[in-house]
């Protein structure tokens, strides 16, 4: 925890430096007769953020904030495992959207989460993984008229049939 606290503050500090540098592409000063330039707002707010990160570091050094006193680990083995399985699952889910379409990715994700993380029976998992994406399709495309990514072209035949159903 104690190391994590200073690393987080450091990363946020670096990020605010990057934001300051990026804002400086536009004028950051006070232009006489016109008020602040285009980069003024983000630049100075990032500067305040950097300052606040400095204060967090100071509190860390003095050991006044709770995380800087605690010596428990950032996450225990269970925590890291959960993060990797669930967080990683979400990342793979989003990655799959452009390959097997939004609906395909939803099916895969539900299958993975319910069967392997939730340990539900196949009898519950399979119908859910089939019905939820279909329900989403009819809701978003049919009722709300929002087209979702349809993935690579091999999904076309499926979508052609589905679109024929709703229109």
């Amino acid at each position, binding site marked *: *925890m104690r190391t*994590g*606290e200073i690393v*987080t503050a450091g990363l*946020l500090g670096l990020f*605010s430096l990057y*934001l300051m540098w*990026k*804002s400086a*592409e*536009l004028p950051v000063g*006070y*232009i006489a*007769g*016109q*008020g*602040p*330039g*285009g*980069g003024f*707002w*983000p630049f100075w*707010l990032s500067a*305040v*953020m950097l300052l*606040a*990160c400095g204060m*967090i570091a100071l*509190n860390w050094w003095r050991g006044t*904030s*709770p*995380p800087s006193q605690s010596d428990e680990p950032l*996450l225990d083995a269970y*925590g890291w495992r*959960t*993060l990797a399985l*669930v*967080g990683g699952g*979400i*990342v793979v*889910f*989003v990655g799959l*959207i452009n390959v097997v379409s*939004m609906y395909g990715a*939803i099916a895969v*994700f*539900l299958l993975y*989460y*319910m069967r392997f*993380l*939730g340990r*539900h029976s196949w009898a519950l998992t399979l119908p*859910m993984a089939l019905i*939820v994406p279909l329900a989403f399709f009819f809701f*978003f495309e049919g009722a*709300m*008229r*929002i087209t*979702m*990514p349809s993935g690579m072209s091999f999904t076309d035949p499926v979508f052609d049939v589905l679109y024929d159903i709703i229109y």
Partner: protein
Amino acid sequence: MEILALLGDGMLLALQPLNLSLILIGVTVGLFIGAMPGLGSVNGVAILLPITFLVPPGSAIIFLAAIYYGAMYGGAISSVTLGIPGASTAVATTFDGRPLAMQGKASLALVTAALASFIGGTVANVFFTLFAPALASVALSFGPPEIFALMLLAFATFVGLGGDDIPKTIVSICLGLVLASVGFDTISGEPRLILFEMQGFLQGIGFLVLAIGVYGIGEMLWTIEQSRGEVTTTTPRMTARGMVDDTKEAVRRGWKGTWIGSVLGFFVGVLPAAGATPGSLMSYGVAKMVSRTPEKFGKGNPDGVAAPEAANNSASTGSMLPMLTLGIPGSPTTAILLGGMVIWGLVPGPRLFVDETEFVWGLIGSFYISNLAAVIINLAFIPLFVWMLRMPFTILAPMIFVLSIAGGYAATRDMHDVWLMVIFGLGAFFLRRFDYPLAPAVLAIVLGPIAEPTLRQSLLLSSGDPSIFFTRPIAGPITVIALILIFLPAIQLLRRRRAARRRAA
């Protein structure tokens, strides 16, 4: 008296069988659309606009207004049950609604939200009926300096919402404000802060991307990790008796927030640039400020649900006013309604109240009826929403993730935003671990895009002279009050510390 007669005619018009059934359908559809994270009234109204050609214009706009009302009620549902604010107007509802749900009192939170929304909507309708033209001129007198002063006041009211760690709260606020300025600078017309030169940032970072990332992904991961997979929200079975008890408790513990929200929300909502979000935030802040037990806020206080919910409904009705009387949309939804009126051959603007009396009062009458229908339908569906919470967490959690990703995509239809959402979610998980409060960042990303341009427009008006915020008759007092409120806690803190030190010495 004449107004009452006109209003009576309007209500009768809204009660015609065709219109009444449109209201019932519209409210139900709106309720479910509003309850989906990522979708809001704007989606419902936009999609149903073309379909309204099937019915006469009067009925069509009544239908659309009903969807609008339904969606406003629906926003609270995802805030309470899923913990994800589906729209920026419902952020403040999560502060106390989510803790209530975690304590197994989801139905109390939902009942409070429904009743507060109803009263907020009704109060706004009464103001609307009585003072519409007068309020329109108030709205016009708010130029950029006044709006900026108001934003300052909104910030001031939620200065106390952060955690105990002041530097971390400041980081959160600044991060939100800076992320809000990504995209395009209105004033200079230049692209700005296109991070890592990725073109996806040209459209800026939307509120929903951050909110769904933080609440739908980050907060969910946090819950799963903390609970060690054993999440059990003890939700008692819904009974008719339970609903009655909840209603009594909601009235007893939420009436104060409801009145604050109803009145404040309406006046902020009437201002075209401000809208329902600042209205609901300010109401939450004020309710906390005037409360005798401010420490209970954020831990599941019905007042904390009632104030923002009353305010966002009241403000949403309020934002119809500039649309109808001035032809200026106060929100994206009213913008689309405005488009609809143009399509039907009506000219919104100062002449509408004179030239199209029947239409205007029919619409206002339908506001009253829609609002009543919305509260009844909403209360009827509460057991269903509470039942959802009883699902095993290993089914509920993946469903929330799927809703977040699909809803996040639906909002802008850009995969860039979905990736950003995942990054925010993972980042929020770690920041949460180190006690960084995240609500201030989410609020800042809503207020930033209103505050920054109005600040710079004002300074252009005054040729760079900041005294414009103090010398204008409306902006001046608001700025002064806001500054006092911002610095009051700091001064009190310093004084207390000094006193403590003196005692120690």
